[in-house]
Every structure is written in structure tokens, then in C-alpha cells.
């Protein structure tokens, strides 16, 4: 049961001009599963290593339950890190790998054997204890790496891109396994990833880090519907940004006057809406109907991406292929932007 507090954490590598991580502050509640999301080189792995004790911060603090851990050696922090490439010790059996942490803690061999057996059951690989890691598939290796980390019941678990080496099918299996074990054991868990889908699928809360600075820290779906700025929205695949003025109820722009949901920001700003939320046909509520020209159709199999033009303003939409059968380039069509899906960035 560990609350993790990251306070103004900064890392400047020797000889570097700009900090790899600039003044990151983050509160992670007990038992929560948090993603550090950002493009490669944004400082997220640096953060992980500082928490694990593999790298010393330039300034700032990391506190577990209000106790600073920066002076503790890596082996005494109660933090276990699972690396992206699993790093199973190749010359030990799977069981010896899983039991490694307990052996280092001088646990009784019979006790180690029992708990390794339990752990292998938990990750659903009960019969593989005698194998060598090289005889396992990628998905199995990752589950063993997870078992090896969880067996020591760490206060904080760190995962480096936990789903990125797995194919689509295994991703969901692994996601379910990580979530269930982490919740069962109540371990505060932080993982880093560059893949917004990985973050969204796995995490309770997501911290987006761009250029060494935290942009937004929120539940996953908020990033899609209420991004703090354009860079954040673009990182999550946003395409439509229309400059104009909001009076709180309507938004005036080259698209005309559009009704906003209640509570919208007032003043000059940018209207944004997700391509997936652009609907074909007139608005049943009557307000936000637009007339668009079809500029390009990109057929993607399960989805179709439409490049539209409303007056001179480009608008992108993603729709079900069946909804646009028979449409041709240059066609004029009605679209609507459901009021609830609009968002104004100030």
C-alpha cells in the first residue's frame, strides 16, 4: 500500500544542454496503475530508472508514503522494474528465475519452491518451471518476467513498455493479466510507453510527457475528448482544429456558428472534435449540420477515412465503410458534429 509522490524531479545528463526530464511532479495513489506516455526520448525511461535507483536525479525527490527513497540502494527500495526485453537470466531455469528475488532475500528453499509454484500458477504457466527461458515464446517470457517481479511483493512495480513486444492477440491477454494481478496484490504500478493505445488500454490514469514536461495527467478517455492543448490532441490522433471564438454556448468560426456543450471555455480558442465523431447526415438535434465536399476517400478495411472541405476549411472524418458506399470524390454531402463531442481549447 504505497503512495508514490514524484516532486520536481529533474535530470540533466552530463554535457547535455537541455534536461532529459524537467521538473516532473506526479502523485500516484496507492494501488493505482499509471502510464507515463510520451514519444521516445521524452524522459520517461529516465524517470523510471530514477525511481528504481539505477540513475541519480539532478534535483527533486521521489517519496514513497512521504519517505524519500533517493538515498536507498536499488536493492532496498521495494521497487522492482520489469524491462521491455524481459531480461530473463538465460542460464537459470524458469523456476530459478522466478525465485531469484526470494533467494537474494535468503528465503528458505522449500518456501521458495512453494511460492514459485504459486506464482507460476498465477501467470498460468504451471508446467514450465524446468525449462530454460530460451525455450519460451515471447508472451511466456513476459509472463515469467512479471512473475519474477511480483513474487517479492514490491511496494512499487515499474514496467517498461509492457505490451509493445507482443502481437495483438497476446496484448489483450497480457493486459488482463497485469490488471488483475496488480489489483489483487494492490501494488502501485507505473509503466512507460510511447504508444497511446497501450497507455489507454492498460492504465487507470495517463501522464502525457512531451519535451521533458508533463502536459496532462488524467483518466485515459479524457485525452480523447478534452485535451488541454493542440499538441496533446495531435498526440492522440486529433486532426481537426478550427480557430474561432466561443461565447460559452456557441462557437463562431469559418464553419459558422456551432452549439457547444455546457461549460465550454469562453473567448478566442480552437474548436476540436475527433474524426470518429463526425457523423454523416443532418444533425437530429438540428444545430450543428454542415455542408461538406468530399476531397479524398482512404479505404482502410474496417474504417474509411474521409478528407472533407467545409467552405475552405479542411475537416477529417473516420466512418464505417458501409456508411459511405456509393459516395464519389467531389460529392456534396451533409455532415453533423454532435454537440456533446465538441471541445474548445483556449
Amino acid at each position, binding site marked *: 500500500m504505497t503512495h508514490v509522490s514524484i516532486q520536481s524531479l529533474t535530470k540533466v545528463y552530463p554535457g547535455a544542454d537541455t534536461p532529459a526530464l524537467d521538473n516532473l511532479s506526479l502523485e500516484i495513489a496507492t494501488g493505482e496503475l499509471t502510464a507515463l506516455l510520451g514519444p521516445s526520448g521524452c524522459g520517461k525511461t529516465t524517470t523510471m530508472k530514477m525511481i*528504481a*535507483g*539505477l540513475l541519480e536525479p539532478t534535483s527533486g525527490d521521489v517519496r514513497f508514503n512521504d519517505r524519500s527513497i533517493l538515498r536507498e*540502494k*536499488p*536493492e*532496498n527500495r521495494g*521497487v*522492482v*522494474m520489469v*524491462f521491455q*526485453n524481459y*531480461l530473463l*537470466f*538465460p*542460464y537459470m531455469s524458469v523456476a530459478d528465475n522466478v525465485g*531469484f*528475488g526470494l533467494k*537474494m*532475500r535468503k528465503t528458505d528453499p522449500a518456501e521458495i519452491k512453494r511460492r514459485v509454484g504459486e506464482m507460476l500458477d498465477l501467470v498460468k504457466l504451471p508446467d514450465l518451471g524446468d525449462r530454460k527461458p530460451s525455450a519460451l515464446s515471447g508472451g511466456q517470457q513476459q509472463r515469467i518476467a512479471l512473475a*519474477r*517481479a511480483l513474487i*517479492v511483493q514490491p511496494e512499487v512495480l515499474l514496467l517498461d513498455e509492457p505490451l509493445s513486444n507482443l502481437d495483438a492477440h497476446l496484448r489483450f491477454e497480457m493486459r488482463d493479466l497485469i490488471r488483475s494481478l496488480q489489483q489483487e496484490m494492490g501494488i502501485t504500478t507505473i509503466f512507460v510507453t510511447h504508444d497511446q493505445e497501450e497507455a489507454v488500454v492498460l492504465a487507470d490514469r495517463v501522464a502525457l510527457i512531451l519535451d521533458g514536461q508533463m502536459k496532462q495527467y488524467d483518466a485515459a478517455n479524457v485525452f480523447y475528448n478534452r485535451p488541454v492543448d493542440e499538441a496533446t490532441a495531435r498526440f492522440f490522433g486529433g486532426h481537426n482544429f478550427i480557430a474561432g471564438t466561443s461565447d460559452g454556448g456557441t462557437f463562431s468560426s469559418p464553419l459558422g456558428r456551432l452549439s457547444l456543450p455546457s461549460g465550454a471555455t469562453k473567448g478566442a480558442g480552437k474548436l476540436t472534435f475527433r474524426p470518429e465523431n463526425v457523423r454523416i447526415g443532418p444533425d437530429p438535434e438540428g444545430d450543428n449540420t454542415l455542408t461538406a465536399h468530399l476531397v479524398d476517400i482512404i479505404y482502410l478495411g474496417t474504417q474509411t477515412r474521409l478528407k472533407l472541405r467545409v467552405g475552405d476549411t479542411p475537416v477529417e472524418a473516420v466512418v464505417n465503410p458501409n456508411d459511405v458506399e456509393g459516395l464519389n470524390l467531389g460529392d456534396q454531402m451533409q455532415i453533423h458534429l454532435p454537440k456533446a463531442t465538441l471541445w474548445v481549447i483556449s
Partner: protein
Amino acid sequence: MIGQDGLWTRGFRYLTCLILVVWLIMPLIPLAIWSFARGWFFPDILPKRWTTDAWAYAVSDTAGVLDALWLTIGISLAATVLSILVGVPAGRALGMYKFRGKGVVELMILAPTIVPGIAVVLGIHSVFISLGLTNTVHGVILVHLIPTLPYMTLVMAGIFSNYDPAFEAQARSLGASPLKTFWYVTLPAIMPGIIVGGLFAFLVSWSQYILTLLIGGGRVVTLPLLLFNFATSGRNDITGAIGMIYILPGIIILLLTAKHLSGRSGAVGGFGRI
């Protein structure tokens, strides 16, 4: 590429391999025959009479072969152990870290493998005189380090350049102290390199002739010196017997390491890296 590498081209490549093997294995056969021959002269294919006299002489006290054998083993073992002690940390620094002047250091380490040993030993001779190391076993061991140290260092640099230090970070993260991390994680990972590199360092020391002759001043008589003496004195039968004893460790080590070598364990990978 099957369309391109026709049968003829492939055949030619295999033929060159065959030539190579014949060329390299052939010399060892007459040596073995000689050691059991009583007179064997051109143009006979095989000796007319066979005997074990040469072997009896070789293992007798008079010949000094056994003394030389134990001395050679001792010198080679000492040179090997010293090479491992210096070569492992030096190889780690070379293989894993980038530092200013690394290129120069690498060049220096390669030097003795390129500059002929005879030139090197002439220079070191006067230094050893002033240190009182000439004509002693200690001096011979030290001078053997000139070829063995670079070898061991290069092998270990190759091992460490393929070694992921994240394994050590992982062990620390799982609760291992630095010492336990070395014992349980680092050492098993580099052990194949130490074994194969050590065996080869042993062989390199085992094969030294000129270094031993010049620094030992004829007082430190190792097996190759004895062998050379018999060879130039024309005793082909005894030369054959001593020769068989002399090549024995090489053959044993070759067979021992064959698995590692053909398994491309990278243990002999030093030269590949630097």
C-alpha cells in the same frame, strides 16, 4: 540466390575447403609415424620397422622431457591466470564504455599481435636485465604476458560488447547486492569467454619459443625448446614422440572448445570486435 550460385560455383567453394583441410591435417601424420619408426627414409611410404624406443626414451628421466613438461604447464598456467585477472576488467572497460582515447588504447593492445614478437623481446631484454628477471621463470612468465594479455583482453572485450548490463540492473532491482549480482549474473554470463579465452591464452603461452629462449637465456627449458633441440639434432624418432606430447593440449582444447566454437558462442569473438 539458387539461380545464381550454380553447382559449379558451389563445387569450387567446397573444393577450396577440402584443399584447406588436407593442407592443414597432412603435416601431423608423419610426426606420428616417425615416433614409432625405426628408420624411415625416402621413398618409402611407411617405415620398414616399428618400435616404441623413442617413446621409452622420451618418458625416461634422462631426456628431461617430463621436467620440461611440468615446467611448461606451470608457466602457461601462471600466464593464463594473470591474463584473466587483468583481461576481464580491461575487457569490460573496452567493450562496454566509450571514453576519450579508447581508439589509441585499442591500437596499443593490437600492437603486439602485429609487431613480431622477436622485435618486442629484443627491446624488453635490457629492461629485464636491469630488473634481474632474465634467466628466471618469473621473467619468462612475465614476457609470455605480452602475447597472452592482448588476446585475453580482446576476447573479453568481445564478450562484454555483446553483454547487456541491464541484466545487472535487473538483478539489483530484484534485491541482489553488487557482490551477489556479480556472482549470480555477471560471472555466469562471461564464463564461456573466460574459459575459452583462458584455454587459448594457455595455448599461446604453450607455443612460445623465441620469447622463452631469449628471456630464459637457455636456463628455462620448456617443451618447445627441447623439441627444437631434438629436431635440429636430427633425431626424428624422438622429435616425433616429443612432438606428439607437445601437440596434445592443443588437440584436447580444440576438441573441448569445438562445441563453443561451432556454436558461434562469440567466446573467441575478441578479434571480431576491435
